[in-house]
C-alpha cells in the first residue's frame, strides 16, 4: 500500500501530528459559539411569550372584576360600583391594545379586535342599565307612585267613608304585594311568563278600579269629590302600569348585559389558549435549540478525536513498520544469509538511507563468502600454507583424504593427526615439504609408509607481487598402483582359456574399482554363455526338446542364444503340430461317428412319424368334407327362416293398423253414447219440471203427473244404459291399446330375428368356403408327406456308407500318433487326450445303432433325440 507519508522526513511528520489537533480545536470553538447564539435567541423568545401569558392572565382577572362590579351595582345600586366597573373596563381596553400589538403571534389580532368590540357594546349596555335603574328608583317612577298613593289616601280620608278607605287600602296593599313578592320572585322568568304576570297585574288593577268606582257610586259623594277620587285612582293605575313597563325593560337590559358577558367569555378563553400554545411552542423551540447545540458539540468532538487518533496511528505506523522490517533484514545479514532482499531502499527518508547503506555492505560480504565456499566444494584436495610454514587452511576434499590415510601415515609419523592439521607446521610431513617455498609451480611424488602421494606446489602472490603463501594440491596414488598389478594376473589366465579367475573388489574405490569390475564382468560373461549353450545342446541330443539357453546376454552371445533357442523351438513346434493334428483327426472321426449314429436314429424316427402323419391327414380330409356338407345345409335353413320372419313382420304391421281402426270406431261410439246420456239427462229434467208443474196444478194435474213420472223413469233407464255402454267401450279401448302394444313388440322382435338370421346365413356360407380351402390344403400336405418319406429312405442308405468309411480312417490315425510319441515337447498331457480309450469306445456308431433299435422297439422314438450330443441340432 502506498503511504504518502513515506516521502516526508520523520521530524516533519511529528510536527504535523501536533498541528492537526490545533486546527481541529479552532473549528470546534467556532461551532460552539454559533450554537450558543441560537440558544440565546430562543431563550429571549420564550421570555416574551411568558410575559404575554402573564398579561393574558391579568386580563382574565380584570374581566372577572368587571363582572363582579356589575353584580354589585345591581345589588346595591351605588355609584361607586359604576365608577369601578368603568375603570376596570378601561384597563382591559388598554391591555387588549398591548396584546393586540404583539407582532410575533399573528393569531391574536382577530380575537382581541372582537373582544374590543364586545367590550364597547358591554360598556354602552351597562350605561343603559344604570340609567334605567335610576329612572325606575325613588327619584323617578317609584317616587311618582308614592306621591299618588299619599294623595289618594288623603282624598279618601277627606271624604270620610271608612268602607271606601278600606277598599282603597286593600287595593293598594294588593298592588304593593304583587310588586314586592310575586314580581320580585319572577326575576328569572321567561318573557312568556312575564307577559302572563303582567296580564294578572292589569286584571288586579282593573278589579281595584271597578271596586273603587262601585264604592264611590254607592256612597253619597259630591260630584267633585267623586271625580277627584276617580281621577286619582286612574292616575295611580297608570303610574303602576308605567312602573311595570319600566321594570320589564330594565330586566331585559340586564339580560342583554349578561349575554354580552357570556359572549366575551369564549373569546377570553381563546386568547388564553393562543397565548398558552405560543408559550409551549417557544419552550419547545428553546429545548430543541439546546439539544441541537449539544449534539453538534458532541459529534464534532468525537470526529476531532477520531481524526487525531487516525492521524497519530498512520504517522506511528509509517515509522515503526519500515524500522521493524529493516531490523529483521539486519538480523538475517548478520546471520550470514546471502539471498536477502533489502526493502525500503526507494524511500526518501532516513530509513531509506539506512537501507541503501546496508545493501552496499551486504554486497561486499557476499563476494568473500562465495570465494570461501567455492574452495570448499572443489573435489581436488587442496591446502594453503603460510609463508613461514604454518598450514592456514585445507578444503573438505583434503580433509577427507587425510582422514582415510591417517592410519597408514601414523605408522611412520606417530604425531600425525588429520583433525589437527590446520595451524600445525608443514614439517609434520617430513623433508620433502621442508621448504615449501617454491619460486614456481613444482611437481613431486612422496612416499609416506604404505601411501604414495603426488603433490603440486604453487606460490600464491597478491596484486603487488608479495608472497601470501603456498598452495599445495595432493593426490593419493597408492590404490592405483596395486590394481594395475592384479589386472595383469587375470589377463594371463584368460589367455590360457581359463575364465574362472576374478579380481577382488572389496578394497577398491573410484577408477580402480570400475576397472576391476569391468575385467571381472568380461570373464564372467564369456564363462556363462559357453556353459549354457553346451547344456542345451546335450539335452537336444537326448530328444528333450524342452531345454533352452537361459540368462541375460549381449552381442555375439545374444546372437548365439537366440539362434540355438530358435532351432529348438522350431523342432518342438513341428513335433507338437504333428501330435495335435493326429489328435484332432481322431476326435473328428469320433464326433462324425456319433453324429452318424444320431442321424440314423432320427431318420428312423422320421420315417415312423411320417407314416402317422399320413393317416391323420386322411382322417382330417374326411371330417372337412363332412363339415362342408353341413354348412351348406345350414345356409339353406337360415334363408328359409329369414323369409318366414319377414312375413311375420308384415302380418304384425297389418294387425297394428286394424287395431287403430277399432280404436277410431270405439271413440265414435263413445261420442254417440255421450250424446245419448246428455239427452237422457235433459229429458229427466224436463220430466221433473213437468212433475213440479203438475203438482202445482193440484187435482187437475194429477194425470199429467203420472205421465211425467213415466217419462222420468224412461229417461233414467236410458241414462243408465248409456252409462253401461260407455264403461264397456272404455274397457275394450284399454284392451285394444294393450293389443296394439303387444303386436308392435312382436313386429320389432321379428325384425331383429330377420337381421340375426341374415348374419347367421353369412357366417355359415363363410364356413363353407373356408372348409373348401381346408380340403385342398390337406391334399397338398398329403403329397408333401409322401415326398418326405422317399427322402428319408435315401438318407438311411447314405448313413450306412458313411459309417464304413469312418472305420478305416480311425485305424490310420492311431498309427500316426504312435510315431509322433518319440518327441518329448514338455507338454505331453495334450497328446494323451486324443489317444483312443480302449475297446468299448472303438465303434461308437454301432453302439448307438443298438441303442436306437431298443428305443424304436419300445415305441418311444422321441426320447432318442433328447439324448443326442449338443452340436447336432434337431430338425
Amino acid at each position, binding site marked *: 500500500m502506498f503511504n504518502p507519508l513515506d516521502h516526508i522526513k520523520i521530524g516533519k511528520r511529528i510536527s504535523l501530528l501536533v498541528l492537526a489537533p490545533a486546527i481541529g480545536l479552532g473549528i470546534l470553538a467556532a461551532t460552539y459559539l454559533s450554537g450558543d447564539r441560537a440558544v440565546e435567541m430562543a431563550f429571549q423568545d420564550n421570555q416574551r411569550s411568558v410575559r404575554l401569558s402573564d398579561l393574558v392572565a391579568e386580563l382574565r382577572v380584570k374581566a372577572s372584576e368587571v363582572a363582579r362590579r356589575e353584580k354589585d351595582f345591581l345589588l346595591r345600586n351605588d355609584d361607586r360600583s359604576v365608577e369601578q366597573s368603568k375603570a376596570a373596563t378601561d384597563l382591559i381596553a388598554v391591555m387588549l391594545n398591548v396584546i393586540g400589538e404583539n407582532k410575533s403571534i399573528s393569531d391574536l389580532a382577530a380575537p382581541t379586535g372582537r373582544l374590543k368590540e364586545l367590550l364597547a357594546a358591554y360598556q354602552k349596555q351597562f350605561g343603559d342599565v344604570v340609567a334605567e335603574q335610576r329612572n325606575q328608583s325613588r327619584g323617578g317612577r317609584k317616587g311618582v307612585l308614592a306621591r299618588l298613593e299619599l294623595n289618594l289616601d288623603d282624598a279618601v280620608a277627606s271624604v270620610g267613608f271608612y268602607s271606601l278607605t278600606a277598599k282603597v287600602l286593600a287595593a293598594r296593599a294588593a298592588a304593593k304585594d304583587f310588586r314586592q313578592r310575586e314580581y320580585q320572585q319572577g326575576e328569572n322568568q321567561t318573557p312568556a311568563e312575564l307577559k302572563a304576570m303582567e296580564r294578572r297585574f292589569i286584571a288586579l288593577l282593573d278589579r281595584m278600579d271597578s271596586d273603587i268606582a262601585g264604592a264611590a257610586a254607592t256612597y253619597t259623594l259630591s260630584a267633585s269629590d267623586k271625580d277627584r277620587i276617580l281621577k286619582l285612582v286612574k292616575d295611580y293605575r297608570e303610574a303602576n302600569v308605567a312602573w311595570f313597563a319600566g321594570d320589564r325593560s330594565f330586566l331585559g337590559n340586564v339580560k342583554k348585559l349578561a349575554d354580552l358577558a357570556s359572549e366575551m367569555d369564549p373569546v377570553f378563553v381563546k386568547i388564553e389558549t393562543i397565548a398558552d400554545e405560543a408559550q409551549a411552542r417557544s419552550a419547545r423551540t428553546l429545548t430543541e435549540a439546546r439539544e441541537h447545540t449539544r449534539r453538534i458539540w458532541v459529534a464534532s468532538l468525537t470526529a476531532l478525536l477520531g481524526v487525531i487518533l487516525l492521524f497519530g496511528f498512520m504517522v506511528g505506523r509509517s515509522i515503526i513498520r519500515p524500522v521493524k522490517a529493516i531490523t529483521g533484514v539486519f538480523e538475517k545479514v548478520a546471520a550470514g544469509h546471502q539471498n536477502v532482499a533489502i526493502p525500503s531502499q526507494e524511500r526518501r527518508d532516513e530509513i531509506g538511507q539506512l537501507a541503501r547503506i546496508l545493501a552496499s555492505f551486504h554486497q561486499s560480504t557476499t563476494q568473500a563468502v562465495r570465494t570461501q565456499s567455492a574452495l570448499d566444494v572443489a573435489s581436488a584436495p587442496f591446502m594453503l600454507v603460510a609463508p613461514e610454514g604454518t598450514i592456514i587452511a585445507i578444503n573438505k576434499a583434503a580433509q577427507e583424504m587425510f582422514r582415510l590415510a591417517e592410519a597408514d601415515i601414523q605408522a611412520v609419523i606417530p604425531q600425525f593427526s588429520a583433525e589437527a592439521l590446520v595451524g600445525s607446521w608443514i614439517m609434520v610431513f617430513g623433508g620433502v615439504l621442508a621448504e615449501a617455498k617454491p619460486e614456481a609451480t613444482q611437481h613431486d611424488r612422496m612416499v609416506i609408509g604404505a601411501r604414495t602421494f603426488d603433490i603440486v606446489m604453487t606460490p600464491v602472490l597478491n596484486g603487488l607481487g608479495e608472497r601470501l603463501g603456498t598452495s599445495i594440491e595432493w593426490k593419493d596414488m597408492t590404490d592405483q598402483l596395486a590394481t594395475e598389478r592384479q589386472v595383469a594376473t587375470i589377463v594371463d589366465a584368460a589367455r590360457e582359456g581359463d575364465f574362472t579367475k576374478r579380481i577382488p573388489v572389496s578394497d577398491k574405490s573410484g577408477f580402480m574399482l570400475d576397472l576391476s569390475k569391468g575385467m571381472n564382468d568380461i570373464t564372467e560373461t564369456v564363462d556363462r554363455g559357453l556353459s549354457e549353450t553346451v547344456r542345451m545342446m546335450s539335452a537336444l541330443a537326448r530328444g528333450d526338446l524342452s531345454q533352452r539357453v537361459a540368462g541375460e546376454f549381449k552381442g555375439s552371445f545374444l546372437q548365439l542364444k537366440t539362434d540355438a533357442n530358435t532351432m529348438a523351438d522350431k523342432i518342438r513346434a513341428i513335433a507338437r503340430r504333428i501330435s495335435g493334428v493326429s489328435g484332432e483327426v481322431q476326435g473328428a472321426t469320433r464326433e462324425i461317428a456319433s453324429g452318424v449314429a444320431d442321424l440314423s436314429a432320427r431318420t428312423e424316427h422320421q420315417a415312423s412319424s411320417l407314416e402317422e402323419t399320413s393317416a391323420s391327414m386322411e382322417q382330417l380330409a374326411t371330417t372337412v368334407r363332412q363339415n362342408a356338407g353341413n354348412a351348406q345345409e345350414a345356409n339353406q335353413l337360415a334363408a328359409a327362416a329369414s323369409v318366414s320372419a319377414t312375413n311375420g313382420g308384415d302380418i304384425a304391421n297389418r294387425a297394428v293398423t286394424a287395431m287403430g281402426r277399432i280404436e277410431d270406431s270405439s271413440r265414435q261410439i263413445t261420442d254417440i253414447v255421450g250424446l245419448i246420456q246428455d239427452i237422457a*239427462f235433459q229429458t*229427466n229434467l224436463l220430466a221433473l219440471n213437468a212433475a*213440479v208443474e203438475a203438482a202445482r196444478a193440484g187435482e187437475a194435474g194429477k194425470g199429467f203427473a203420472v205421465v211425467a213420472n213415466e217419462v222420468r223413469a224412461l229417461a233414467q233407464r236410458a241414462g243408465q244404459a248409456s252409462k253401461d255402454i260407455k264403461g264397456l267401450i272404455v274397457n275394450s279401448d284399454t284392451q285394444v291399446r294393450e293389443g296394439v302394444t303387444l303386436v308392435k313388440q312382436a313386429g320389432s322382435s321379428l325384425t331383429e330375428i330377420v337381421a340375426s338370421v341374415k348374419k347367421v346365413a353369412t357366417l355359415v356360407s363363410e364356413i363353407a368356403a373356408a372348409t373348401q380351402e381346408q380340403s385342398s390344403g390337406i391334399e397338398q400336405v398329403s403329397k408333401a408327406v409322401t415326398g418326405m418319406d422317399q427322402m428319408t429312405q435315401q438318407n438311411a442308405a447314405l448313413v450306412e456308407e458313411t459309417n464304413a468309411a469312418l472305420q478305416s480312417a480311425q485305424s490310420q490315425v492311431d498309427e500316426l500318433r504312435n510315431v509322433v510319441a518319440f518327441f518329448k515337447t514338455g507338454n505331453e498331457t495334450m497328446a494323451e487326450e486324443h489317444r483312443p480309450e480302449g475297446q468299448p469306445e472303438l465303434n461308437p456308431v454301432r453302439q448307438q445303432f443298438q441303442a436306437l433299435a431298443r428305443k424304436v422297439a419300445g415305441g418311444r422314438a422321441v426320447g432318442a433325440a433328447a439324448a443326442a450330443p449338443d452340436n447336432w441340432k434337431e430338425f
Partner: protein
Amino acid sequence: MIGKRRITDYDELPGPTPVMEDSDVQQFVSFMVGDQHYCVDIMAVREIKAWTGTTGLPNSQAYIRGVINLRGTIVPVIDLRMRFGQGLTEPTPAHVVVIVAVGEAQSGLLVDGVSDIVTVPRKDIAAIPDLEGEERNPFFHGLVTSQNSLMAVIALDRLISQRVTGPASTSAAA
C-alpha cells in the same frame, strides 16, 4: 239485498202456497249434496235446470255463486254445499240448479243432482232432535224417510233470507 230485488213487469209469481193438502200428504223434490239427501216442498219449486254457469257478483257472500237471467228475472244462485259449510262445489253440466220462490223472490240452489219427487204422509214428517241443549237447527223443518233414505226438509225462508249463526256465518239480509 239481492233477495229484495224485484223485476216489476214479471207479475205472474204467486205467493207462497200453504202446504196444506186435502189428502194429508205432502210432495217434495229431493236432491243430493254429496252423499246427503235433502228435499224442499214441491210448491216452492219453480223450475229445475241444468248448470249453465253464472255471472259472478263481486263483494258478495262466499256461498253466492253469482246470478243467472231466468227469462228476464235476475236470480241469485246459492251453492248449497257452501251454505252448509262443506266447501265450494265444482260445477259440471251434470249439476243442477233448483229455482225456488220465497215470497216474491226467487233463488237458485246449486245441488249435485236431483233424485226424485217423493210424496210423504204429513204425519211421517219427524222433528229435528235436540242435541245437547243446542238451538234448533235453523235450516231444516224436519226429517223425512223415503225409500230407506233419510232426508232433511230445508226451511227455505230461513236458508235464503235469515241471518243464521253457525258455520255459514252471517247473511247479507239484516
